[in-house]
Each structure stands twice: as structure tokens, then as C-alpha cells.
């Protein structure tokens, strides 16, 4: 089985900081890392590989030259090979153009490795864009089935996958023939840390870097120009003004004053 994991390099979650003076997002000096949700995708792919004999895991990203680090990071966690879609022409892509480019990259991976792709795994969303649109988008372009918000892979073999989808009010169990796309949530597994052997492999790995032309992408469907949506403006929302401290000499008084205030605000 050939599994492809799609990842993105995003500002590291741990580094997102708020400026204490202005109460707004600090934009300077945010280090990059694999989008945290994608780590669960990588781990699930590696686990499937361990379950299903003769499996290979590929990882693909679209991004600037420095995004190659994230592919090496993925290899250190057990992925076999990485592929980098890297071209200025991809820049400024929205979810439509991103999912288009990624699926063209996935087609190219199948051709390059001479192994058809059976399963595509994405994280449920990125921590910078927060859309969750790229996984289902890839499935739409490839015209294959997909399930998002997957919290468990119950069964997988060479021809089908049975998954549990996390809903607001319970769990849906669905079955799809392969090839298919899944987008996974954090609950699905506990990602492993890179092994020493993995780190060695990551160091040595030769990662093909493909341009828009290499993946035979339609110029009208990639990057900023190929994106139906554009960011018209962005701004920091006004910070919340400091609140009121509920006073009281005893805990009883504090509780009483708090409930009185909540009543006043009509939120009880």
C-alpha cells in the first residue's frame, strides 16, 4: 500500500505570543515547524504501514525552500520519502489552489515512484489558516471519496478503509474503497518522537524538488492568480479591556457578589 501524507510548515504553536502591551499577536520571530495536526497524520500513516505488509509512506508539502526541513522531520518520524512542491508560482494560494497543486503533486508522486497512491492522509486543519478545506479539496480534485475528522482507523486492507468520524454528538462509522482521503483529528493517536535511525535517514534523504511545470500544473489554477479568494485586508481586533475583580472579605461574599454581577449581566 502506498500512503501519501500532506503536511504544511507553519509558525510553531509554542511560539505564538501575545504582546503584553497591546494585547495583539506578536508577529516577529515565529519559528516554523510541522503543523501540529499533521503530526497525527504522519503517525497514522506510519502505523498503517506497520499493520499492512509491503507499505510505503510518502510525504508531500507545498512551500518555500525552507519547508524542506518539515519533510526531513517527517522522515525522522518513520516516513520513507519526501517530495517538495517548490515554486514561486505556488505562492499566495488559497485552499482551492493549494488542494489543486497538492493533488497534481500526488499524481506526480505515483508516476515518479511507479506506485499508485491508495490512501491520502491530511491533518484536520492547519494552525495558521484554520480552514480544514484542503483535505476534502484534494479528494474533490481527484474525484475519490473522503472522510474528515477521523478519530480512528478501524480497519484497512488493500481495497478498503473503515473509519470513525468524530461528530458533535457521537461517532459515525464509514467505509470507503481505496483510493480515498482522510483528514485526522488529534484523538487518533499519540505521535512518536523521531528515532535516531529516523534522524539518520532524514539527514541522508534526497528530496526531489518539483516546480509547477514538473507536476504539469495548469498555470491558471495555482498560486495567487489561480485562487478564487483573496485576502483583502487584515487587522488586529481591539484587545479586550481588563475586567473587574470580584471583591469580598470572605469566599462566601465573593461567591455572592459574583452571582449578583452575573445576574446583572443577564447571563445566568
Amino acid at each position, binding site marked *: 500500500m502506498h500512503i501519501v501524507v500532506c503536511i504544511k510548515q507553519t509558525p510553531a504553536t509554542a511560539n505564538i505570543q501575545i504582546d503584553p502591551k497591546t494585547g495583539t499577536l506578536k508577529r516577529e520571530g515565529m519559528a516554523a515547524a510541522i503543523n501540529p495536526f499533521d503530526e497525527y497524520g504522519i503517525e497514522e500513516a506510519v502505523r498503517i504501514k506497520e499493520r499492512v505488509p509491503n507499505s510505503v509512506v510518502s510525504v508531500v508539502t507545498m512551500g518555500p525552500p525552507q519547508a524542506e526541513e518539515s519533510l526531513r522531520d517527517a522522515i525522522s518520524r518513520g516516513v520513507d520519502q519526501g517530495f517538495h512542491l517548490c515554486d514561486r508560482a505556488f*505562492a499566495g494560494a488559497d485552499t482551492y489552489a493549494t488542494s489543486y497543486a497538492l493533488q497534481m503533486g500526488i499524481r506526480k508522486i505515483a508516476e515518479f515512484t511507479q506506485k499508485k497512491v491508495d490512501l491520502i492522509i491530511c491533518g484536520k486543519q492547519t494552525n495558521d489558516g*484554520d480552514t480544514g478545506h484542503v483535505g476534502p479539496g484534494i479528494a474533490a480534485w481527484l474525484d475519490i471519496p473522503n472522510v474528515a475528522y477521523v478519530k480512528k482507523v478501524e480497519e484497512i486492507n488493500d481495497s478498503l478503509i473503515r473509519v470513525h468520524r468524530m461528530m458533535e454528538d457521537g461517532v459515525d462509522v464509514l467505509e470507503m474503497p481505496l483510493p*480515498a482521503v482522510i483528514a485526522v483529528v488529534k484523538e487518533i493517536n499519540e505521535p512518536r518522537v523521531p528515532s535516531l535511525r529516523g534522524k539518520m535517514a532524514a539527514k541522508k534523504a534526497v528530496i526531489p524538488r518539483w516546480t509547477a511545470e514538473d507536476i504539469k500544473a495548469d498555470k491558471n489554477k495555482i498560486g495567487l492568480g489561480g485562487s478564487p479568494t483573496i485576502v483583502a485586508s*487584515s487587522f*488586529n481586533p481591539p484587545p479586550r479591556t481588563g*475586567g473587574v475583580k470580584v471583591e469580598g472579605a470572605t*469566599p462566601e461574599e465573593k*461567591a455572592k457578589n459574583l452571582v449578583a454581577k452575573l445576574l446583572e449581566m443577564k447571563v445566568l
Partner: protein
Amino acid sequence: MANEIFIIKERCTGCGSCVKVCPVNCISMTDRAKEEGVRWKKLAVIDVNTCVFCNACVEDCDRLFNKTKEKMPNPDFFHAIVMKKEKVEVNIDTTAYKGVWCFAEQRHGQLMPTIFELLHVGKKLSLDLNEDLSAVVIGHDVTQYAQEIIEHGADKVYVIDHPIFEHFVDEVYTNALTDLIKQEKPNKLLMPASIIGRSFSSRVAIAAQTGITADATELSINPKTRMLHATRPSFGGNLMATILCEKHRPEMATVRPMSFQRAEKQSGRKGEVINVKVDLSKWNIRTKFVRYEAEKKEDIDITAAEKVVSGGRGLGKPEGFKLIEELAHTLGAAVGASRPTVDAGWIPYKHQIGLTGRTIRPKLYFACGISGQIQHLAGMSSAEVIVAINKDTECPMFKLATLSVEGDLYELIPLIIKEINKIKHK
């Protein structure tokens, strides 16, 4: 040709203003080399690989130029950023698309209240456009909901009713909605940013070859262009971005639940119900729905809850959640949690609020023993009223909270429960 953006070095003052407006943090300031002989010490550098060509920095630098021009003739600085955007020809007659559509989600035959929120904001958009407001409901035995949707403001309701729609399957729902879009050509399409909405809206957008904005919290129509301005938070609400879909139709957006109030009911309001015929033979459906496993009834869905009581590391032990549950029960609230308590196994993941958990926007949020790390705030900072209970008065949550109470939560919460019960019994 790829997009280009560059700085005219001679005109850059190194003021750093553009760094602040860039939404993707791709501009940095560097020291100028001395031999250049320019009076300015710093120089802006743009990382073109990260740039999304939004034009914000160009506009900002031009604004500074125009401001300076009021004071001196022809300044030789500012107006320093040049952008050349690649243009792709799109030939879509946008005027052929009419009406505002709202997707009415149903789960297991129950209509979800998100439709009333969509109808509330959709009505405003439809009045600004002077076009019809319609709703689309997909399910099995859902025709009964059409009148209720009309009474909440819809002029038309498209009902797509068939046993195949009983459960949500991405492919099936995508086919149904896309076929209807292609046939009826709506101008705008709003969907709830629920799990179902977020799952298949993107598939629909690509199948219908149009653009979509995820998780909008503000929506408006530009009276000149008649375009939808969809504003959405990123980084957990610390940065807002307004998104446009200029050339493709319908302009789609998913709307974060609880961002808008519900439309009011006008009993007896009249509208048109259109039963849409479905031709399944054309669809290639591969996914099989196996079964649904319901969650315990007493659990309130956290993303739809108006009130949420959350516990954090300050609880000190897993049993602390018993107290949280008790307060939640008294308030009729859902139970939330911070990441450390979930990671420690004190409470299941579905309760986790924050960057890697759920994003919520309740009317009332109780943070008990939660210090307020940015990752947690990302999931709840847009709550209307925040109450923080903590021993540490210096914690970030106290700075954000509407009301903060200093003290031992094991002492305070039982007293708060007692006070609330007193009012209830009055």
C-alpha cells in the same frame, strides 16, 4: 510569470510600518550597508516565498507617502514597494447569479439551529442586494421543516429529500448541493462551520469551481461591487482577515456557529417550497455509511453550548472535574477542559478547548484553575462573558476575564453553586 514584489531601496526609510500590517509576517527590517550613503539606517526586506501579495504593505507605504506630500512637495521617500500581480482571465458572468442561500443542516432528522443564525445574517445580505433569501435542506423526511424555515425569513426553500440523505456522507451531499448550485446559480451561499459544514463545503466549492471562506464571523455586502466581504479570525481570533471572492460565483462562506443571533420567527409567513428531484444514476457514490454511535445524552455539545464551565491544571487532581461537572449542571452548561488535563487523562479529548481542541464562542465561560496560555485562549477568547477563578492573580486569564475571582476553587465553586441554587428556587 510569477508574482513579483520588491522594495525600491532608495525610497525605503526603514520605518517598519509595513512590518506591522503584513498578515503573514514576511517583512523584516535589516541594517543597511554603510557604503550606500543613504540617510536611513534600516531597510525592509520581503520574503517573497511567504508573501501572499495582499497589497497591504503597498497601501500602507503609499498612505505614508500621501501624508508626507501634504507637508512637503514631492518627497523622495516612501512609495517604496512595488507589486506586480499575475492576472488570470476568468470569464464568468457574475450577474447571472442571483440570491442568497443558506444551508440548513439536519442531523439524524433534527434541524440544527444554525440555520436560524444563517437566516438572520442572510436576510441582511439579501436586503442589501435586493435579492431573494433561500434555504437548502438535504435529508430524509425533512419537508416538514420547510415552513419553519420560511417563518424564520426564507423566501424559498429547496428540499432535497431522499432516503440516501438520511446520514451525512461527503460525496452524496456534495453531489446534491453542487447539482442544485449549477442549476439554480445562487449569488452567495452560507453554510454552518459545523463538522458537517466544514467537511463538505470545500468539496462543493471545488466541484462548483468557486471560492470559499472558512469560519467567517462577520459578513457584509460592498454596495458598489455587490461582493461579499467575509471576515474570519485566525490564530484564535488574534488576527482578523477579510476575504473576497472576486470573479467566481457563488461566493461561499462557512459561518462560525453562535456568531450571529437567531432570526425571529414570524408565524404564518408565506414562502415557496421547491421539492428538488434527484437523479442518483449520474452519481458515483463509493462511501458506505455503516452506523452511528450516539454519545451519552447528558453530555451537552460543547461547540453549540451557550454556557461552558472549564477546568484546568489548577484542579490538581482528576476528581476535580466532578466539581466542574456539578457547577456545569447547575448552570445548564457544557464541560470544557484545558490541554494539560486532557493530556493527563483526567477527561476525554472531546472536551478540550483551544488551538488543538475545539473553538467555542459561548455567552458565558467559566475558567476554573486555568492560567490562560495562548493555546487555550485561542479556543475561547471570543466568549461574551468570561469568569476566571484562580489563586494566582497574575495569570493571563485574569487579564482577559470580564469577572475574576481570586481564591481556592474548591472553596469557591460549592459556594457559587449554593448561590445560584438560591436564585433558582426564588
